[in-house]
């Protein structure tokens, strides 16, 4: 590690911008074990550190490609975009932040919703994009997840939501908070209709996202070592004025405390979902809904 010269600690980027995805270059330093690993090796390993099994954060699109049959998915509600309803300004205008992140991610907001099949089972999938303002949940995320639920009710599909979020988006004030109730009320209908909802929690899933849909799956599944909780660890430390134990609020801790059904390695997630669907939706899989060619996008 001698050749890896540690620079003077740079001014820290806001949490949502830190370790978004793997940085450019041939080598990458693992956030967890601090080992320098060959990037291509990490990529081959489903973006998981070959030394310590740390799951690097990946983009929403990468997840969809890995999970859906042939990597195909039909995206919907792509025209929904955020508005600055509060005319919110902190150190920067919310309107400018939106434009920034849209430029950076090519997305209008922090969630992609789509339809496809997994192992032949028809699914509606919503995936959060952490690269867009820390995956924060505002009106757009709330509306898109709610529409996913409604689509499941119409098409009698299963719902899969992959969470990766710091929680509600402060720049939309109480409107963000209300998305928790809106989505949960829609999930009440899904629940009563007897349609399956599998919630996948990835690093990190905290705040209002955990305290609404992420914890409401018929099955709640997590990737290894993901930070999952209601309050963020720093807030808890400040409140109780003591250091938190190692592993606190990690997936393994939540399984131990009965809050998650199980943990799955990223490379096994697709197979695990198919096993779940066999129980939830029956064997064999209903034949896939044919998707019009024009709408099909290659992930």
């Amino acid at each position, binding site marked *: 590690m001698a050749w890896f010269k540690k620079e003077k600690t740079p001014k820290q980027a806001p949490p949502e911008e830190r370790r978004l995805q793997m940085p450019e270059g041939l080598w990458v330093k693992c956030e967890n074990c601090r080992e320098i690993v060959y990037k291509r090796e990490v990529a081959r390993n489903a973006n998981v550190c070959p030394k310590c099994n740390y799951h690097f954060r990946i983009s929403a699109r990468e997840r969809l490609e890995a999970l859906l049959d042939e990597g195909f998915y039909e995206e919907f509600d792509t025209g929904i975009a955020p508005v600055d309803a509060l005319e919110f300004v902190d150190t920067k205008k919310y309107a400018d932040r939106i434009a920034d992140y849209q430029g950076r991610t090519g997305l209008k907001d922090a969630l992609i919703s789509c339809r496809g099949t997994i192992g032949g089972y028809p699914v509606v999938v919503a995936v959060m994009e952490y690269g867009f303002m820390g995956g924060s949940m505002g009106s757009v995320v709330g509306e898109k997840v709610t529409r996913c639920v409604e689509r499941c009710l119409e098409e009698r599909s299963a719902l899969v939501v992959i969470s990766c979020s710091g929680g509600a988006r402060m720049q939309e004030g109480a409107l963000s908070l209300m998305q928790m109730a*809106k989505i949960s009320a829609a999930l009440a209908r899904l629940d009563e209709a007897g349609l399956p909802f599998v919630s996948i929690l990835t690093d990190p899933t905290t705040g209002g996202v955990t305290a609404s849909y992420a914890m409401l799956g018929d099955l709640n599944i997590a990737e290894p070592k993901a930070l999952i909780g209601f309050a963020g660890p720093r807030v808890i430390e400040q409140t109780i004025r003591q250091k938190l134990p190692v592993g606190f609020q990690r997936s393994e801790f939540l399984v131990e405390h009965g809050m998650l059904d199980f943990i799955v390695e990223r490379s096994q997630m697709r197979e695990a979902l198919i096993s779940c669907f066999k129980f939830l939706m029956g064997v064999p899989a209903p034949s896939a809904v044919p998707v019009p060619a024009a709408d099909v996008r290659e992930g």
Partner: protein
Amino acid sequence: MAEQDGFEAAILDLERRIESLSGMGEDLGIRRQREKLERELEETRARVFASLTPWQKTLVARHPKRPYTLDYVRHLVEEFVEIHGDRRYSDDPAIVSGFGLFRGDPVAVIGHQKGRDTKEKIYRNFGMPRPEGYRKALRVMRLAEKFGRPILTFIDTPGAYPGIGAEERGQAEAIAHNLREMAKLRVPVIVTVTGEGGSGGALAIGVGNRVNILEFAVYSVISPEGCAAILWRDASRNREAAGAMRITAAELLALDVVDEIVPEAPGGAHSDPARQAAIVGDVLARQLQDLRRLEGGELIAQRFERFRKLGRFTETLP
């Protein structure tokens, strides 16, 4: 509060001067002087409370003398029976629940409860519930539903408690579960934000057919201090954060987050808790009468639609 922001100083000063005149006899001069001061007090109160900033409203909402759930219960609910415990782990004193007669009719009451003195503040955990508080709340809601009784909830919390035990026992799950299950209740649910509507910890008993807010109460996704610490990286920018997040009653009404603003007694709810309770009671009675006309399924549908439409975005069709 005077020491926190100073806007109540003129009011407190007048109150002290009126107080000092008592016991000085009833001659004409003294009486005139007192009447003059009382008029001045009334005008000052009206003027100060008509122009509170969002941060000052936050301070009024957190006022140590602000009426809490059990104060409303005392004034509004006869034969109140408090019931305890989530039947899973323990009882949480940060949420009180029970039943009684509201203007003659049986109702369930659930609300956050803060303490007045140091000992009670600690006992009530400053109104910050743990998961068992939310689970108790849902248990009581289900009880009300089983026997066809309306549910009145009162919101006044800084937020759900951020602690180790709370996380271990599933704070997030407890809140999420309430949000979903409240959407299924077949009885009327009326929510009133009486003080601080602190984020998910407030919303977890806040999914109602009607959502009211007191004139100087606030309701927000995060506290102004918390928002300032994250976005400005400086918790002392709380005044700006309080303004930016649109946390006041009128702003929330404009966003459809609340349905009705309940006026406060002159000088704020704490200046006259009995009068404030009567004002709240009148609003609740009217809304209950409206909601009693709806069947269970209609109540669920109305509550769903109320929340379904919340949010602002644009949509261009491809």
